[in-house]
């Protein structure tokens, strides 16, 4: 196990390096001038050149990349003179648009996205897998049909429709949840406020995902039920309940866990639509804004974050498989 994990972490580091290089390469190949976008209405050549120098865009792309890498380990100084600023290690960059260290920006937005993702994950797993099990158990009968309707609705309704719908009815019309929430509160300081803040975004995401998982769980369980070892379990005299609970569920679990971890990783990268609709200042919103504003350092950082999360989730899934399935030797 140890050699396996170390090997994977080694490859992970290489992958992240390549990802960051790719982002820098894309920016280098863009057909327009990033410095020219930095100032607003009253722009003239002198300001642009000054900005270009200040932001470091006058250096070659290799120099820029090298400074970026160096900053991760040693921290970095930005700007000159009176507006000089130092970002401590790991310095992923400095956003001139916001005047903040990127690492700090990530640290501010990540908790919100994490809370959103984790809460939604729990909700959609409970609903999706639960309904999937019921649909498989009562295949062909009314619970199965009812779940099919839910699946169709969930998969055909886009996130922004569900989100806006919930927002309009629950918040605005019926005022169950107040409109002007004060912003992010942590679970521990204000549990009720926390729930108010996250409940609608959770439901929005959960409905879409749960629908997929219902269908998938149902298929996975039905497929497992067709296996020979299930027949053996029944031949031993086990009740159908035990057969489902012990033998089937564990076997059907494997593909569900794979999907869930990858979906979760995707959400961390940015549940952009949901965050926008409910005005959650998470990583998604951050990424979107920085792409529009060509805030290169932030884009690089969020891309690396997204890639890193996917890699780690993959690693966790592989280790989970090794625990679950004794045939897997790492």
């Amino acid at each position, binding site marked *: 196990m140890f*050699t396996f994990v170390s*090997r994977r972490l080694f490859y992970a580091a290489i992958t992240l390096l390549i990802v960051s290089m790719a982002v820098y390469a894309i920016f280098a190949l863009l057909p327009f001038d990033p410095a020219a976008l930095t100032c607003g209405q009253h722009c003239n050549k002198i300001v642009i050149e000054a900005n270009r120098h200040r932001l470091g865009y006058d250096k070659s792309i290799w120099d820029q990349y090298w400074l970026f890498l160096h900053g991760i380990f040693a921290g970095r100084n930005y700007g000159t003179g009176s507006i000089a600023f130092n970002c401590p290690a790991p310095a992923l960059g400095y956003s001139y648009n916001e005047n903040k260290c990127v690492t700090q920006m990530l640290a501010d937005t990540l908790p919100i996205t994490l809370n959103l993702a984790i809460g939604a994950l729990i909700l959609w797993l409970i609903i999706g897998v639960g309904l999937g099990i019921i649909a498989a158990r009562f295949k062909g009968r009314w619970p199965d049909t009812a779940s099919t309707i839910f699946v169709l609705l969930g998969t055909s309704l886009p996130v922004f429709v569900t989100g806006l719908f919930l927002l309009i009815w629950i918040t605005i019309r019926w005022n169950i949840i107040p409109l002007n929430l004060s912003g992010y509160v942590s679970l521990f300081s204000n549990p009720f406020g926390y729930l108010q803040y996250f409940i609608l975004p959770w439901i929005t995401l959960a409905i879409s995902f749960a629908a997929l998982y219902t269908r998938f769980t149902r298929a996975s369980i039905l497929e497992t039920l067709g296996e020979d070892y299930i027949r053996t379990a029944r031949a031993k005299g086990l009740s159908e309940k035990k057969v489902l609970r012990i033998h089937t569920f564990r076997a059907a679990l494997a593909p569900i866990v794979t999907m869930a971890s990858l979906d979760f990783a995707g959400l961390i990268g940015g549940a952009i639509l949901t965050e926008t609709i409910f005005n959650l200042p998470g990583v998604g919103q951050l990424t979107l804004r920085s792409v529009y504003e060509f805030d290169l350092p932030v884009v690089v950082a969020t891309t690396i974050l997204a890639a890193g999360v996917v890699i780690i989730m993959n690693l966790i899934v592989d280790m989970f498989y090794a625990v679950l399935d004794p045939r897997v030797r*790492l």
Partner: protein
Amino acid sequence: MSQDALFSIKDLTKHFPVKKSGIFNNEKATVKAVDGISLDIHEGETVGIVGESGCGKTTAGRTFLKLVSPTSGQIIYKGQDITNFSAKKMRPLRAEMQIIFQDPYSALNPRQTIGKIISAPFEIQGVTPDGGVKREVERILERVGLNPEHYNRYPHEFSGGQRQRIGIARAIALKPKFVVADEPVSALDVSIQAQVINLLEDLKREDGITIVFIAHDLSVVQHISDRVVVMYLGKIMEIADSTNLYSNPRHPYTKALLSAVPQADPRVERTRERIILTGDLPSPMNPPTGCVFNTRCWKAKDICRTSAPELLTVGSSTVACHFPE
């Protein structure tokens, strides 16, 4: 190695590397599927290869036709050493060397009509028979006992036995000289097996095709073969005439194998002497040293554990054993 053999192999081996985990995947184990076999096959004869799982017979069959590249050794067809022939050089030979697969359900492309499947060899080799490809395909269909009017049907519309006939039709389309039949009847019901076996015998008799018949069912192999090769863990244990092999087996493994085959005759079954082999088949990744059969042989002595016996002629059979019967 005789000069007039149509097909010969010399010290043929096929090892499959198996990766083991390390930081950089550098420890390797190998599955020694085929571990040094030599055989001459003469034109027109049917050679059966028998053995149990893991003996390497299927891998051997595929290696003969270079569907799988050998690790070492020589393959000689019509006097030419084809071991290292490129795909391009093999192409014209493939018209003469064909294979019939075991599983009639997965060997045929479900999206092609059987007409297309059987016409494919003509298209690939660029051969146009007299009267056109379609006529020829219909003639072949009739020959294998299928209705030529089913030219445009799909494989799933046929039963297992019929699908196997389609596979045979495809194999004989270009009138090959050398056919490897890899367990062609194992997946079929008993009554259908007989039909397909009879078909193969007819084809053999009428066209003089040389057949390598690979199977695990000894009765079937004896029925159709002129000579039989017994394999165990990648090596040849015995080669003999089919009648001699069964009436006078020389290798202990052959004896055990024959003794284990149940015969459809209760009186014989209940009175015969049975040799039950102890222990399990060793793993092909870790075959025993010396004679590969020594771990289960009741005759094994020290020499069997240290030195692998050569294939030598004993009577009218060729045996690899230090103490043949």
